[in-house]
């Protein structure tokens, strides 16, 4: 298929359809409303259902309901909306239901602003909702990657029977780039007969399936948490994705950055290379599971004297970077938030200050 020029938000909507998602529930919020607008039009054309909930709280549980029935389902929102969905996310994780959540981050806390931000790293990676659960979190750096990760998210949500999040930002949602929709990323829906409340008649079974997150028996609850923990351990073995940029060079500084911010860092790295200054970039493409070993290995390369995490936040991923570097190098941080994305020139200035 030829490339088309699409906004990130619309492309995420189309990717969901290509991945076989027939259910999408959402509540509008800038900067992701185009996903809802796009799917409101497109889903009925493919026999799917678009429903606008009365709030993000309701949407979270509509997702839970559809996922519990074994349907491919997605929602999209932006930061404050994801906060409202976080309770449902915890329930969905506990009840082991596959679902795809997209957060096109805007500035926070509170209502914040509508411009791009990466202030929801902690929320996405460390919880958001209560209890011992994790989301598998993808961090695309552009429209094409947002498409591929969205399509893949449905496959992985079913592989792990749990919620998967695409953590984008306003820039990725609003920007147009050429995209294609790789057919091979569409997976056959998994067999959900053993657990989904899809109807005993439909699955010709006399066994009643139960989707729940309440386990009053401590042994049973402990077992459910161990089951979840085993999934997260498996994700750490099988799903980590990252990219190295200029990491073959004898770089003196290693930048760790993701999403839109990492693209600005790449331009800064190119600018410094022209001046003869080598800087490397390690870009996590999954934030959970985090590329722990890759960060450690890249940070402890002999030529590397300093590590810096650069984010559109006040310093969130930097805590994971510090954890992975294990005190072997000094870990610095630079971040801006509020919507003004740091320029490549600013990044060059910051890096030169470390040399």
């Amino acid at each position: 298929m030829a490339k088309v020029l699409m906004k990130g938000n619309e492309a995420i909507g189309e990717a969901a359809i290509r991945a076989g998602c027939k259910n999408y529930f959402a509540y509008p919020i800038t900067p992701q409303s185009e996903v809802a607008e796009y799917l409101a039009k497109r889903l009925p054309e493919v026999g799917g259902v678009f429903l606008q909930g009365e709030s993000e709280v309701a949407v979270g549980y509509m997702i839970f309901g559809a996922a519990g029935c074994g349907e491919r389902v997605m929602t999209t929102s932006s930061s404050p909306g994801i906060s409202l969905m976080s309770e449902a996310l915890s329930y969905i994780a506990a009840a082991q239901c596959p679902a795809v959540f997209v957060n096109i981050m805007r500035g926070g806390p509170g209502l914040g602003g509508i411009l791009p931000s990466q202030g929801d790293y902690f929320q996405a990676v460390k919880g958001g909702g209560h209890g011992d659960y994790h989301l598998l979190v993808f961090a695309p750096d552009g429209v094409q990657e947002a498409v591929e990760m969205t399509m893949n998210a449905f496959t992985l949500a079913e592989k792990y029977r749990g919620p998967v999040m695409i953590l984008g930002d306003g820039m990725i949602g609003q920007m147009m780039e050429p995209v294609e929709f790789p057919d091979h990323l569409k997976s056959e829906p998994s067999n959900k007969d053993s657990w989904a409340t899809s109807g005993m008649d439909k699955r010709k079974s006399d066994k009643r399936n139960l989707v729940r997150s309440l386990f009053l028996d401590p042994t049973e609850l402990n077992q459910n948490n161990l089951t979840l923990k085993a999934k997260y351990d498996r994700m750490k073995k099988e799903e980590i994705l990252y990219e190295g940029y200029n990491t073959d060079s004898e770089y003196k500084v290693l930048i760790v950055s993701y999403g839109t911010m990492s693209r600005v860092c790449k331009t800064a790295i190119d600018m410094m290379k022209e001046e003869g200054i080598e800087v490397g970039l390690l870009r996590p493409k999954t934030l959970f599971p985090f590329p722990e070993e890759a960060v450690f290995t890249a940070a402890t390369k002999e030529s590397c004297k300093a590590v810096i995490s650069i984010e559109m936040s006040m310093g969130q991923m930097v805590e994971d970077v510090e954890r992975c570097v294990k005190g072997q190098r000094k870990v610095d941080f630079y971040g801006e938030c509020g919507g003004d994305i740091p320029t490549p020139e600013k990044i060059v200035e910051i890096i030169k200050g470390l040399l």
Partner: protein
Amino acid sequence: MQTEIKFAGFGGQGILLSAKLLAYAAMKQGFFVAWVPSYGPEMRGGTAYCTVVIGDKRIGSPIIKNPSHLVAMNRPSLEKFAADVKPGGVILINSSLIPTRSNRTDITELIVPANDSAIKVGSVKCANIIALSAFAAKAKVVDMDILRHCVMDEFSAKPKIIPLNMKAFDEGVDIANKN
């Protein structure tokens, strides 16, 4: 090699569409492109602007402080962005709405009465197409035949207005050639 073009004007002047058509043409020509809109509350009534980045390798930072060229459709846009344009670039000034000039000698000024020409062609609504084709013809950032096709494609759902927009396109090229 990378070229960045900033389109700026009032919300409703078709700024985002002009920019999209240019990005579309560059994509068809095989370039890497990014179309980066401003989406602040300024879109409603204030200044709307949008940057198209065209490159022969994957676009790094989509945030551009100093674009190669500027298409200024109203006075606040010219005043706000003229100083940012890299030396050697083209600044298109919509002289129907902008009585001033860029006050720069290290760039090429392209004076286009986009609104007046559009009214002459048939509708003020196609001022953005006149500006687009005039700019593209002057700055030579994309193949003009491909761009013309992209404009035609854009209006394929409304075939009635294709002739008007084609006329506008040709008028813009004409103005650029005489400038």
